């Protein structure tokens, strides 16, 4: 460019800028988005990439500054540790440090290590591309995946724009996975897993991470997402057991308001507390989840209920419960992340003592039946996206157990309100324990009959509702265990025997209790009996009749008040 041209250019530039100001905002002036105050996205985006409604404060509050410093200190330690991942010293410190929270800049790397992504990726080189290619031709889940990618984490800057790079990755990962694991295909909820992993790893790593979450026994999410949700049932029942044992009052309140655990816990379990807890806490939960696996789910669910018990107990309606558990907690958990995680650690110990820390390994029906990556041509109906009008067998099982549980809860509620028992008089019964040794409970029974067992146990719970809540939960544990022993003997493995105690119309006058007629461990049973039989009182008497062929019956022989009942056990 010669001098004349340069001068010309400068003049043109000057004119252009002048004319901009002359014209002002009218007449189709071109303004880049970042030039206008409307472009506030960077002021409202937090360090994790989530966009907020309001501009974030320019200054961090003192607590945040402190946390920031602590994290910087930890970064040094983590730098050392990640370089020497396999060493003994790492193994020793890892758990402690993960419970304190993985520094965000290490999250991707450490999550990959915990999931074993690198090895898998190497072993299965080329598989991801192959699956993605297959998906282009064959996947029958594309419409659903598209619908969910379009609305997953849209408040995150990476997913904000339609068809952005990250949205594309999420779509590809889920599409490819729908071919890799054709039994699950795609189930709503998986977009959360893929979306979150993709915030911390690249596309192929996220694919293998997702695969580990579903397939590895430690996480075993296949059982949640596969047709009929077999694992969900088991975990919900486990959660109910914990609630009955440790938070019986709250459980009763929830039942009374018609709040089935499935209503709030399904999402907790399916997406590991994402979108139900604040972002930072959600990440901390994922840190420990990836370390310790699915035992974190019941522990965290219990932790939430326990920490918020005093806010939940006064609530009187399902509306309030749902609003609190599904929305309020995500907005503001009310406790800082460290407090929550250390509370969960303590709760794990508490659950361990009660043998309720682990719902057990996956049942056969929760595991994949075919090797991954085996291609089977989809049926015509699934190709054209036609829906079956009938339930599959697995769905039947799910539907029946869910509706039965609802029936029981309703029945219990009906009974509660039709029997003149108030919580105070219930509490007064605390001394006269009609109890079995809770240590009979075998929290890890791996046999396949658990589902129907628990159905029975719910019957028992419902029927025992006139007793104190403490008694209830123990009897529940006991009947569960006994039943499992019975069905072990009678129906072999994998079968689903019919519940022994069938639901019946509640009546305020008759109390029926399921009592095992072949006690599994007579010793402990007997040991417990003398303690449980209260003083003799002629005026108040109930009799439990146990007949091998019939549902055992508790009969109320005399005018009966719950303050000081006598239990006469008539065991044949």
């Amino acid at each position, binding site marked *: 460019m010669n001098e004349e041209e340069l001068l010309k250019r400068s003049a043109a530039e000057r004119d252009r800028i002048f004319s901009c100001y002359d014209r002002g905002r009218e007449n189709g002036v071109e303004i880049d988005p970042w030039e206008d105050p409307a472009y506030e996205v960077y002021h409202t985006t937090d360090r994790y990439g989530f966009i907020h409604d309001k501009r974030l404060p320019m200054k961090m509050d003192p607590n945040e500054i402190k946390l920031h410093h602590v994290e910087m200190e930890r970064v040094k330690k983590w730098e050392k540790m990640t370089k020497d991942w396999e060493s003994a010293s790492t193994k020793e410190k890892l758990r402690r440090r993960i419970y304190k929270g993985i520094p965000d800049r290490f999250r991707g790397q450490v999550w990959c290590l915990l999931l074993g992504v690198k090895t898998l990726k190497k072993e299965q080189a080329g598989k991801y591309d192959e699956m993605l290619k297959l998906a282009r031709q064959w996947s029958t889940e594309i419409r659903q995946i598209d619908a*969910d990618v379009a609305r997953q984490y849209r408040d995150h800057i990476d997913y904000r724009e339609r068809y952005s790079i990250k949205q594309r990755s999420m779509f590809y990962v889920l599409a490819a996975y729908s071919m890799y694991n054709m039994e699950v295909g795609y189930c*709503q909820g998986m977009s959360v897993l893929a979306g979150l992993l993709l915030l911390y790893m690249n596309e192929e790593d996220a694919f293998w991470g997702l695969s580990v979450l579903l397939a590895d026994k430690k996480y075993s999410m296949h059982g949640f997402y596969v047709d009929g*949700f077999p694992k969900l049932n088991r975990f919900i029942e486990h959660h109910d057991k914990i609630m009955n044992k440790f938070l019986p009052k709250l459980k009763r309140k929830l039942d009374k308001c*018609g709040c089935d655990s499935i*209503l709030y816990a399904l*999402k907790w379990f399916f997406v590991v507390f994402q979108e139900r807890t604040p972002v930072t806490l959600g990440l901390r939960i994922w840190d420990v989840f990836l370390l310790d696996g699915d035992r974190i789910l019941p522990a965290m669910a219990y932790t939430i209920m326990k920490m918020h018990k005093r806010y939940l107990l006064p609530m009187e309606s399902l509306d309030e419960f749902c609003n609190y558990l599904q929305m309020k907690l995500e*907005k503001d958990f009310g406790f800082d992340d460290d407090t929550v995680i250390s509370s969960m650690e303590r709760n794990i110990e508490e659950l361990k003592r009660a043998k309720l820390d682990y719902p057990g390994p996956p049942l056969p029906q929760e595991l994949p039946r075919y090797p991954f990556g085996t291609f089977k041509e989809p049926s015509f109906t699934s190709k054209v*996206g036609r829906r079956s009008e009938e339930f599959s067998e697995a769905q039947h099982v799910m539907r029946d157990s869910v*509706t039965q549980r609802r029936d029981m809860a309703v029945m219990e509620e009906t009974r509660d309100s*039709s029997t003149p028992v108030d919580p105070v008089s219930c509490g007064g019964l605390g001394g006269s324990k009609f109890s079995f040794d809770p240590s009979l409970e075998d929290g890890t029974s791996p046999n396949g009959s658990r589902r129907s067992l628990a159905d029975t146990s719910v019957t028992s719970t419902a029927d025992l509702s006139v007793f104190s809540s403490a008694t209830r939960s123990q009897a529940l544990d006991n009947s569960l265990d006994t039943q499992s022993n019975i069905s072990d003997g009678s129906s072999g493995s994998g079968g689903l025997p019919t519940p022994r105690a069938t639901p019946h119309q509640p009546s305020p006058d008759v109390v029926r209790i399921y009592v095992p007629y072949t006690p599994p461990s007579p010793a402990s049973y007997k040991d417990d009996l003398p303690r449980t039989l209260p003083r003799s009182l002629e005026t108040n008497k109930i009799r439990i009749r146990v007949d091998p062929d019939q549902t055992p019956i508790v009969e109320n022989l005399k005018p009966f008040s719950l303050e000081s009942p006598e239990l006469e056990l008539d065991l044949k």
Partner: protein
Amino acid sequence: MRNIRRPIRFRTKDNMANRGTAQRPNGQTQGKICQFKLVLLGESAVGKSSLVLRFVKGQFHEYQESTIGAAFLTQTVCLDDTTVKFEIWDTAGQERYHSLAPMYYRGAQAAIVVYDITNQDTFVRATTWVKELQRQASPNIVIALAGNKADLANKRVVECDEAQAYADENGLLFMETSAKTAMNVNDIFLAIAKKLPKNEQAGNGGSSGQGRRLAEAEGQKATAGNCCK
């Protein structure tokens, strides 16, 4: 957005939404209070949650997150001298979650089956839901069919006449709605409220204990056997 705005509750009267404070059913005049369980069903991404959000909170989220499992909300509307409280169950749309649906529609007095007017398959799916409800739900259930996303008229695939004819044949209420523009959203709930019987059985709010309490407060008899058929 992470910051969920404070819910705006409103009272609906004569098809007009008057935004105001939350209505206290017990503080009202001597009018009856009725509580009804209503369930929303329909294919994934047709706008079930958006319809509820519009009706209950008067909001619309462009990117409503997918419902995993189910959600529960309530909203109260006024109808002449009657206060109708809807207990709304919003369900997940994916076929995989179908097995959970009976838990929500059992004992429901009303259902809104939603489809997306820009997608023929969702209409077919809606008819399947209607069939299932007719077969499995309470015999007296009031079913409404909602053709949602009516604001996307230029992408329309399902003709209004076709849906209306189907609704007439099957005795359904029918409206085309838009959660985005709020078109017909309150109206469809009001139409349901009008059609629901508000006689002696009113007040049976499904399975929640609150239903009884409310009914008792009004001096009505709540018989346990009447709950949840």
